C-alpha cells in the first residue's frame, strides 16, 4: 500500500465525506471525521519523509502514464504544503461544534463534517496533483465546500459573505481556467513537468504572454493578495470561527502554493522576474498589503474582522518573500506559510473558545475576559506575540528570513518596512490585550473557562508557534530545501 500513498491522500477524505452523510449520527460522524483527518496527516507525514529521503514521487492515476494521464507528483515543496494542510485539518476538526455559531441544528452536523472533509480533499488535491487542469478541478471542490461552510455561520451576513466569496472565487477560478486553456492551446499538454519542457520554445508568442496574467490574477484572488482581498474580511468574520480557523490556515496557503508552482514550476523564474518584471508589481503591492492590512486591523471593532485584516497583512509578507525571488526571501515566504497557519489558525480557535462564553465577537464584549478565561486569553497573547514577530515565536523566524532576503537584494527600505509593519501589529494586538486584561480591572469576574475539548486544539496550535519558534530545523529546514529546489528549476 505504501506506493499508493499519493492516491490515498485525496481518496481517503473524499470517500469519507459520503460515508459521513450515510452515518448521520452526530457523535459517530465526529469521531469518524477525526480519525480520517488524522490518517490524512499520517499519510502526509509519510509522504514528506519519503520525499526527503528518496526524492520526488510520481503516481500515475488509473495506470495512465504522464503526460497523457493525470499524474500525482510529490516533491519537497508540495509535500511540505500537504503537511501544513493536513496538520491544520487534523487539529481543527476535533474542535467541538457550537450551536451558537452554526445555522444548522445538531441532527444535521454530519453535513458540516462532510463539507469539511470535501474541502480538505480539494485543498490536498490541489497541492498533490501534477496536472494543471486537475488543480482547477480540486480548486472547485475546495471552493464550493468552502462557500457552503462559510454560509453555515449563524448571522445573516454569513450568506452574503459566502455569496460574494462565491462570485470572487468563481472569477478567480475562471481566470485560472482561461490561463490553463491558453497554454494548453500552445503546448497540447496539461502536465506541469511536461509544460515546463514544452513552453520555452513558444515563450515568445502572445498567447503564452497572456496566460501568466490570467493565472497570476486568478490565484491572487484565491490568495486574497492586495488589492484582490475584498472577499476575505467578510468571509472570515461571518464564518463560524472554527471554519475561519481552518480556511485562514489552509485555503490561502494552498493558493500561494499554486502561485509559486505556476511561477517556478511552469514558466520558470527567469521568465517571470526578468522578462515580465513581476517583482516591480508584486513588491510594492506586498508592501502596501502589509501596511494597509495592519492599519485596517487597528481600526476594527470586531475581533474576527481584526484577525481577517491581519491575515491580509500576513499574506503580504508571503508575497513579499516571493517577489524577492532569492533563497532567503523565498524561504521566508514558504516558512511563513506554516507559521501563519499555526498562529492564525490558533487565534481563530481562541475566538471560537471566547464565543462559547461571550455573546458577540465585538471587542467591547471581550472586557475582562483575561480574568474570566485566563487560559484562552493567554493563548491569544502568545499568538499575538507571534503575529508581531517577537523572538522565540514563529513570526520572528519568518521575518528574519524576509529581512535577510531584502538585505541580500540591498533593499534596506523594504527591510525597514517589514519592521514598521511589525510595530503596527503591536498596536492591534495590544488593543485586544488592553480590553481583555485592563478594562474594568477592579470588577470581580467569575472564572469561566472554555471546555478542555476546545482548549486542547487551540493550545496545540498556539504551543506550536512557540515550539517551532525555537526548533526551526523542521520548518525552516524543509522550507529552505523547498526554496533551493524551486530556484534550481529551469536553471
Amino acid at each position, binding site marked *: 500500500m505504501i506506493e499508493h500513498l499519493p492516491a490515498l491522500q485525496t481518496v481517503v477524505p473524499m470517500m469519507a465525506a*459520503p460515508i459521513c452523510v450515510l452515518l448521520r449520527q452526530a457523535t459517530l460522524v465526529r469521531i469518524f471525521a477525526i480519525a480520517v483527518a488524522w490518517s490524512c496527516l499520517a499519510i502526509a507525514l509519510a509522504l514528506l519523509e519519503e520525499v526527503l529521503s528518496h526524492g520526488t514521487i510520481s503516481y500515475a492515476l*488509473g495506470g495512465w502514464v504522464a503526460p497523457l494521464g493525470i499524474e500525482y507528483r510529490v516533491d519537497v515543496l508540495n509535500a511540505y504544503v500537504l503537511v501544513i494542510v493536513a496538520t491544520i485539518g487534523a487539529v481543527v476538526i476535533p474542535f467541538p461544534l457550537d450551536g451558537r455559531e452554526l445555522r444548522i441544528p445538531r441532527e444535521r452536523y454530519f453535513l458540516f463534517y462532510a463539507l469539511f472533509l470535501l474541502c480538505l480533499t480539494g485543498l490536498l488535491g490541489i497541492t498533490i496533483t501534477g496536472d494543471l487542469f486537475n488543480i482547477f478541478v480540486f480548486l472547485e471542490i475546495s471552493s464550493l465546500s468552502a462557500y457552503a461552510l462559510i454560509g453555515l455561520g449563524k448571522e445573516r451576513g454569513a450568506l452574503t459573505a459566502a455569496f460574494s466569496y462565491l462570485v470572487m472565487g468563481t472569477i478567480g477560478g475562471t481566470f485560472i481556467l482561461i490561463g490553463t486553456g491558453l497554454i494548453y492551446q500552445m503546448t497540447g499538454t496539461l502536465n506541469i513537468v511536461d509544460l515546463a519542457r514544452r513552453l520555452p520554445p513558444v515563450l515568445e508568442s502572445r498567447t503564452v504572454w497572456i496566460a501568466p496574467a490570467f493565472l497570476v490574477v486568478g490565484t491572487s484572488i484565491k490568495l486574497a493578495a492586495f488589492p484582490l482581498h475584498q472577499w476575505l474580511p467578510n468571509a472570515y468574520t461571518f464564518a463560524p470561527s472554527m471554519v475561519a480557523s481552518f480556511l485562514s490556515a489552509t485555503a490561502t496557503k494552498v493558493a500561494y502554493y499554486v502561485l509559486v508552482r505556476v511561477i517556478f514550476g511552469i514558466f520558470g523564474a527567469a521568465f517571470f522576474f526578468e522578462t515580465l518584471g513581476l517583482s516591480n508589481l508584486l513588491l510594492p503591492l506586498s508592501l502596501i498589503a502589509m501596511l494597509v492590512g495592519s492599519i485596517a486591523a487597528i481600526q476594527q471593532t470586531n475581533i474576527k474582522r481584526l484577525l481577517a485584516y491581519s491575515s491580509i497583512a500576513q499574506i503580504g509578507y508571503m508575497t513579499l518573500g516571493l517577489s524577492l525571488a532569492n533563497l532567503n526571501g523565498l524561504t521566508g515566504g514558504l516558512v511563513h506559510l506554516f507559521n501563519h497557519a499555526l498562529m492564525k489558525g490558533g487565534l481563530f480557535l481562541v475566538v471560537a473558545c471566547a464565543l462559547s462564553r461571550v455573546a458577540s465577537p465585538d471587542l467591547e464584549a471581550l472586557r475582562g475576559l483575561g480574568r474570566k478565561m485566563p487560559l484562552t486569553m493567554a493563548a491569544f497573547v502568545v499568538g499575538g506575540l507571534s503575529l508581531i514577530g517577537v523572538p522565540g515565536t514563529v513570526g520572528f523566524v519568518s521575518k528574519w528570513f524576509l529581512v535577510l532576503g531584502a538585505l541580500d537584494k540591498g533593499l534596506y527600505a523594504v527591510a525597514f518596512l517589514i519592521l514598521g509593519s511589525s510595530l503596527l501589529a503591536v498596536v492591534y494586538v495590544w488593543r485586544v490585550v488592553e480590553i481583555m486584561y485592563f478594562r474594568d480591572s477592579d470588577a470581580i469576574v467569575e472564572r469561566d473557562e472554555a471546555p478542555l475539548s476546545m482548549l486542547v486544539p487551540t493550545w496545540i496550535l498556539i504551543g506550536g508557534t512557540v515550539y517551532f519558534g525555537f526548533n526551526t530545523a523542521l520548518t525552516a529546514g524543509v522550507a529552505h530545501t523547498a526554496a533551493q529546489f524551486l530556484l534550481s528549476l529551469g536553471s
Partner: protein
Amino acid sequence: MKIPLMRMREKLVVRVVSRFFIPFILLFGLYVQFHGDFGPGGGFQAGVIFTSGFVLYGLVFGLENLQRVVPWRVVESGASLGLLLYGCVGIASLFLNGNFLDYKVLDPHDAMHGLHLGILLIELGVGLTVSASMLAIFYAFAGRRTA
C-alpha cells in the same frame, strides 16, 4: 372571457400526457446510462434525464407527492452512494495491485473486460449522484424546507 385558475393536477391533458411520458423518460434515462460506453451519453446526461422524469411528476402532481416517492433522506443517501461507488471501484483496483482507478486489473484474465466493467460501474456511480443532486436542487428551489 376569464379562464379560471386551475392547479396543474386538475388539468386533464397535462395529467394524462405526463403519466404517459414519465415511464419513457425514465427508460430513456436508463438507455443513455447503460449505452453510454458504446455511444453518446454516460452517467451525467443519464442522471439529468432520469431525474427530469421525477421533476415532471413533481410539477404535475405536487411536491408533497414526489417527496412521498423520493424522500429527502433517500436523495441525500443516493448522492453519497454514487460517489462511494465511484471511489470503491478505484479502491478495488488498489487491492488488485493496480493503481487507483486502473480498471484493467478488475478482470485478471481479460483487461478489456475489466476496462468495460470499470467504466460501467463508475458511470453508474456518476448517474446516481447526478440524478440525486438534480433532485436535491429541485427540492431546494421548489419547497421551503427548514434546515
